[in-house]
C-alpha cells in the first residue's frame, strides 16, 4: 500500500509538472468543456508510469515528458502508402493540415470538417462524441495519454458518414520537422446503415499522440487500414476507441515497420447485439531500439457479438514486441464469440516478445479462445526451400512473409493487402 501511495504521489507530481506550462486551446463552449473534463481526468489519474500494471513492458517516459526527442526524417524514393487507391485525401504535415495537398472535403454521404473548425462552432454533431468514447474507455484500465490528447488536441478530422461512401478517406501524415510533437484527434460517426473506409499512412511526427473515436451506429460498417511509416526514430502512441451498435461492423488493421516506440491501444465496446469487431496488426522490427506494443481491450456487452484479434510480429536484432490483449465478456453477453491470437517470429536470440493475453468472462454461454506463441524460423521448412534452390536469405524472407500472411488476410480489400505486402517485401529486401 505504501508503495502504491508513493507511486501515486510520484505520478501526481510528474503530471503537475507536465501540465504546468500548458494551457487548454480555445474553442466553442462544448469543446472547452470537453477539454476541461479531459484535463480533470488527466489530473485525477496521472500520466502513466513504468510501474503501472499496463506499462510494465513499455516505458512511457518518452511519451509523457515535455517535448519530442529528435527523430530523423526518412527520405525515401517511394510512393505514399495506398497512393494507388482512389480516395479523398487529407494531408497533415507534422500535424498541421495542408489545404493545398488535401482534396476538397466534400463527398456524397460524408460530412467532413477539421477539428480546428468544428471545435469553434457552437453547434456541431461532434460535441456528442468528442472525448466521450475516450472517457468511457478509461475504466477499468486508465488511459491517461488519451485524456491528455482530448485536452490538448487542436486538429484532426471529424467525419460523419450517412450512407455507403463511394471511396475511402485517406489520411496522409507527413513528417518534415525532426522534433515535431503532434497531437491529433479524430472523431468518426458512422450512421445507421452507412459504410466508411478510412486509410491512414505515414509517420506524422517525431512524436505522435493520436486518438480516434469511432461510433458505429446500428447496421453501420467501418473499415480502417493504416501503415505507420518507417522513420526509424519516431515515437507514437495511438488510441482507437470504438463503440458498436447492433449488427454493426468494425474492422481495423495496422502495419508497423520501424519506429523506436509505438504503442497502439484499441478499446472496443460491443453494445448492440450481433456486432462484429476485428482488430489485426502486422509488425516488423529490427534492432534493440525497436519496441512495438499492441494493447487491446474488447468489451462484449451484448448478445451474439463476434470479436477477433490477430497480431503478428517479426522481430530481429534485439527488437521487442509487446501484446496485451483482453476480452471482457459482461454478464448477459450470451453467445459471445471471442478469438484472440498473438504470435511472434523471433529471428535471433536477442529479440523478445512479451505477451499478456487476458480473458474475463461473466456470461455462461460463450465461446472464447486465445493463443500466443513465440518461435524461430522453421528449420525444416527452410531446408526444404533451400533444397529446391532458394537461397537462405530469400527462403527466410519467404517464410517470414508467410508468417505475416495470416494477419494480412484480415484485410478485406485485396488491393490494400497487396500494397502492404509489397512494402513488407521491400523492407525485407533492404535487409541483408
Amino acid at each position, binding site marked *: 500500500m505504501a508503495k502504491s501511495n508513493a507511486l501515486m504521489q510520484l505520478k501526481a507530481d510528474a503530471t503537475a509538472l507536465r501540465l504546468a506550462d500548458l494551457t487548454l486551446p480555445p474553442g466553442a463552449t462544448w469543446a472547452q468543456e470537453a477539454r476541461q473534463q479531459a484535463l480533470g481526468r488527466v489530473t485525477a489519474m496521472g500520466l502513466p508510469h513504468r510501474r503501472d500494471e499496463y506499462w510494465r513492458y513499455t516505458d512511457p517516459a518518452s511519451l509523457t515528458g515535455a517535448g519530442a526527442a529528435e527523430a530523423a526524417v526518412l527520405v525515401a524514393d517511394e510512393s505514399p502508402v495506398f497512393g494507388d487507391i482512389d480516395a479523398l485525401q487529407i494531408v497533415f504535415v507534422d500535424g498541421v493540415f495542408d489545404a493545398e495537398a488535401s482534396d476538397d472535403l466534400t463527398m456524397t454521404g460524408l460530412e467532413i470538417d477539421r477539428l480546428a473548425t468544428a471545435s469553434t462552432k457552437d453547434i456541431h454533431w461532434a460535441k456528442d462524441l468528442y472525448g466521450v468514447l475516450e472517457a468511457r474507455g478509461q475504466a477499468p484500465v486508465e488511459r491517461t495519454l488519451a485524456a491528455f490528447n482530448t485536452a490538448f488536441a487542436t486538429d484532426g478530422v471529424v467525419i460523419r458518414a450517412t450512407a455507403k461512401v463511394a471511396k475511402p478517406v485517406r489520411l496522409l501524415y507527413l513528417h518534415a520537422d525532426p522534433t515535431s510533437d503532434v497531437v491529433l484527434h479524430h472523431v468518426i460517426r458512422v450512421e445507421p446503415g452507412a459504410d466508411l473506409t478510412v486509410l491512414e499512412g505515414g509517420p506524422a511526427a517525431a512524436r505522435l499522440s493520436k486518438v480516434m473515436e469511432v461510433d458505429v451506429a446500428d447496421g453501420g460498417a467501418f473499415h480502417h487500414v493504416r501503415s505507420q511509416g518507417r522513420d526509424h526514430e519516431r515515437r507514437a502512441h495511438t488510441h482507437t476507441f470504438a463503440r458498436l451498435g447492433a449488427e454493426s461492423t468494425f474492422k481495423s488493421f495496422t502495419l508497423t515497420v520501424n519506429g523506436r516506440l509505438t504503442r497502439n491501444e484499441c478499446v472496443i465496446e460491443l453494445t448492440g447485439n450481433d456486432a462484429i469487431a476485428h482488430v489485426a496488426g502486422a509488425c516488423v522490427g529490427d534492432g534493440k531500439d525497436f519496441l512495438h506494443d499492441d494493447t487491446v481491450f474488447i468489451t462484449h456487452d451484448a448478445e451474439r457479438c463476434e470479436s477477433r484479434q490477430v497480431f503478428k510480429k517479426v522481430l530481429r536484432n534485439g527488437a521487442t514486441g509487446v501484446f496485451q490483449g483482453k476480452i471482457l465478456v459482461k454478464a448477459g453477453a450470451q453467445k459471445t464469440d471471442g478469438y484472440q491470437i498473438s504470435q511472434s517470429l523471433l529471428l535471433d536470440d536477442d529479440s523478445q516478445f512479451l505477451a499478456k493475453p487476458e480473458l474475463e468472462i461473466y456470461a455462461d454461454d460463450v465461446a472464447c479462445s486465445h493463443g500466443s506463441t513465440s518461435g524461430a524460423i522453421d*528449420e*525444416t*521448412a527452410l*531446408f*526444404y*526451400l*533451400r*533444397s*529446391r*534452390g*532458394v*537461397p*537462405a536469405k*530469400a*527462403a527466410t524472407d*519467404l*517464410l517470414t*512473409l*508467410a*508468417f*505475416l*500472411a*495470416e494477419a494480412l488476410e484480415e484485410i478485406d480489400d485485396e488491393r490494400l493487402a497487396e500494397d502492404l505486402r509489397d512494402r513488407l517485401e521491400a523492407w525485407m529486401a533492404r535487409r541483408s
Partner: protein
Amino acid sequence: MLEIKGLEVKLEEEDKQILKGVDLKVGAGEVHAIMGPNGSGKSTLSYVLSGRGGYEVTGGSATLDGIDLLDLEPEERAASGLFLAFQYPVEIPGVGNMTFLRTAVNAQRKARGEDEMSAADFLKLVRSKAKDLKIDADMLKRPVNVGFSGGEKKRNEILQMAMLEPKMCILDETDSGLDVDAMRLVSDGVNALRSPDRGFLVITHYQRLLDHIKPDVVHIMAAGRIIKTGGPELALEVENNGYAGILEEVA
C-alpha cells in the same frame, strides 16, 4: 555423374557414427536402388548429399560431375543439379505452391546465370507437367503441401522434380504412404523423367516400387555401409528372403 567415396558421417550433436564408409557411383542415365533394413543409414545418405544440417562429415567425398557437393550450401547443390524427393514433404503454410515452384525455378536459373522464366512460359510449363501427374489447379494454388494427402504430397515432389529438371534425382522412400494407384502415378512421373543424361538413386524398403521404376543396379545397405551390389534380381531376393540371408552372407 554422382560419385561417393568412403563417405563417413556422424551426428553433429552426439557421438554416433551413421555412415561408415559408403562407396557408390551412379552414372548418367542409370537408375540405382538402395535397399536396407531400418537404421542402416539410407535416409542419412540422402540428407547428407542434399546438405541438411545436423550431420558432420568425418571422411570421404561426394561429387556430382566432379563438383564437390559437400562443400556447397543446399541451394548451391540444387542449382548444380541435385534433387531430393523427401520421404516426408514439408508443409509450408502461407506460401502458395505456385509461388514456391516459380521462386525455386527462377532461383536455380539465376544461380546458373540464366534468364528468369517469364510468367507465361512458367504457367504453360507447370500446367502441362501438373496435368501429367493429375495435379489440379486447386493443388497448385494451395499453400505448399498443406492439407495434401500422402499421395498428393508425393506427386507434388515429382512435379517439383519435373519443373527443376535436375541431373541427379534422389528419391527417399517415395513409395511410403502410397496406395497402388498413387504409386503407379508417381512411378510414371519418374519414368517420364528418365533420360540418358539423368541419374536416379531410389531409396526404398520394398521391391514393389522397383516393379514400376526398374533399376539397373541394386545396392544393399546395412550398418552404414553398402554391403552388396547386384542387378534387379537382388531386390527380388530381399523381397523373398528378407535381409537376414544377405547380412549373414557378408558377415
